[in-house]
């Protein structure tokens, strides 16, 4: 099974688990593994969109009275208009059914898959950056890197060069390690190098952040 075949059945895998063949591909492919992890995270976050409980009616009364006192609420609209409007919104939120949630979740997953495929086609291989933002080919740095360097240089202009060089080197490391992992998805050493490359970049960001602390 290759990555394209795997991603075609991805929504099914997320919702009801995968077959042994798909599990095997997942274990050997860092890219698909990361994608599934992202989608599961999205799915987990989607569960947090549960309907909220209404606050006590006294809260609405107090708000309404405050708005009347401030002259922000016309007298003709009266009490029912405010409470009625707010309650209606809340009631709508409670009307979500399991089917509705399933459809929403499926839509999110399909959107994520489409987004992933779209990005893959747009960027040539070997040009992925750490933050999914295209790197500037001239400097081999993405927007986050440039922002980091600007922040470091603002506090200590002398440190700019060292951070620029280090980020350029580590981005080259990540780029090469990603290429190696793509060429040999089953190579555990390639995955180890990729992990190390990202840890190197994380270290640089932590050092730069530590500088800005009081």
């Amino acid at each position, binding site marked *: 099974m290759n990555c394209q075949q795997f991603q075609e059945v991805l929504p099914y895998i997320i919702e009801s688990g995968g077959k042994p063949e798909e599990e095997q591909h997942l274990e050997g492919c860092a890219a698909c593994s990361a994608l599934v992890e992202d989608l599961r995270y999205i799915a987990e976050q989607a569960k947090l969109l549960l309907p909220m409980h209404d606050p006590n009616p006294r809260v609405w009364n107090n708000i309404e009275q405050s708005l009347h006192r401030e002259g922000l609420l016309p007298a003709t609209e009266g009490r029912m208009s405010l409470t009625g409007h707010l309650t209606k919104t809340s009631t709508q939120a409670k009307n979500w059914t399991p089917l509705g949630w399933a459809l929403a979740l499926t839509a999110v997953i399909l959107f994520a898959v489409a987004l992933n495929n779209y990005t893959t086609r747009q960027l040539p291989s070997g040009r992925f950056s750490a933050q999914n933002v295209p790197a500037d080919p001239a400097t081999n740095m993405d927007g986050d890197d440039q922002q980091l360097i600007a922040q470091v240089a603002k506090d200590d202009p002398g440190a700019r060069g060292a951070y620029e060089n280090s980020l350029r080197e580590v981005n080259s*490391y990540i780029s*090469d*390690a990603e290429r*190696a992992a793509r060429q040999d998805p089953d190579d555990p*050493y390639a995955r*180890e*190098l990729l992990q190390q490359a990202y840890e*190197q970049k994380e*270290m640089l960001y932590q*050092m730069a952040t530590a500088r800005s602390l009081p």
Partner: protein
Amino acid sequence: MNLFPTNATVEPAQISRSTLRLAITGFTLTFFAATANAADVRKEAKLELAPGGNITIVNGSGSVALRSAFSGRQVVVAYTTHSDKVEVDLNTTADKQRVELRTHAIAGQKPTPDEAKVDFEVAVPPGAVVNVNTVSAPVTAEGISGDITLSSESGQIEVHNMAKSHLHIRSMNAAVSLTGINTTHVDVSSNGGPVHMSNVVGPRVVVGTTSGNVDYRGDCSGGGDYIFTTHSGEIDMWLPKSASVEFSAHTRTGSVENEFPLEEKPHPNLPQSQGRSFAGTSNSGSSSVELDSINGKIRVKKQ
């Protein structure tokens, strides 16, 4: 007219002038020496620390030297400032679980790089958790134990004689040197700085660099995992003939060299590529050594 008299009558005046010159020179040197050190202020403090407590040291430039404390409950701190534009905050929490030493510029002051330097000497109780963070200050640790994290952008990091500890080192461009480390978990991450290890032994020794070279000298037999990775740095290992090690070395576009006769594994993880990888066991293979690079050279040699 004799414009350059050489008679004896001028001698007393010459001697007197020479003496005066000497005195003036001496006075001037003494004055400059005194003013140069006028701003140097050394202070000492003793801070209580609960067993296993945390010591944090933040010092941009200057130096940090750590050594083992005689007392198990006290952090002994001595520091020297070289300007009145910086100060050191010494803080201890009420429960004695945390001690923090932090250098900072006094509000409204802009010290020069030399004025900003502070030199720390800290005696650390055994078993403490120590975090040192510097920008250019070199860090030296001698004979301490505990959970030690040393981080510096460009200050050299040296650790000697450590045992039964956890050692984490992070360096951007600074050289890292470890000597005489035993039964210690070691984790070194260096971007461009070289990492030198001599007699470093532990259950897990992990070193990763981007372009920094890695070299190891000693006998890592004894059951540990040794993992060295780099992008473009070179990895060199010098081991005794008797080393009991299972090797696995791979490079993408670099090269590998090995002087040890190896017994091949019956089921290697990956097919071996001539000049780009080797794997096998030397003696009984009690320790595992994994060496990986993208395009750096890997060399394993006999001591």
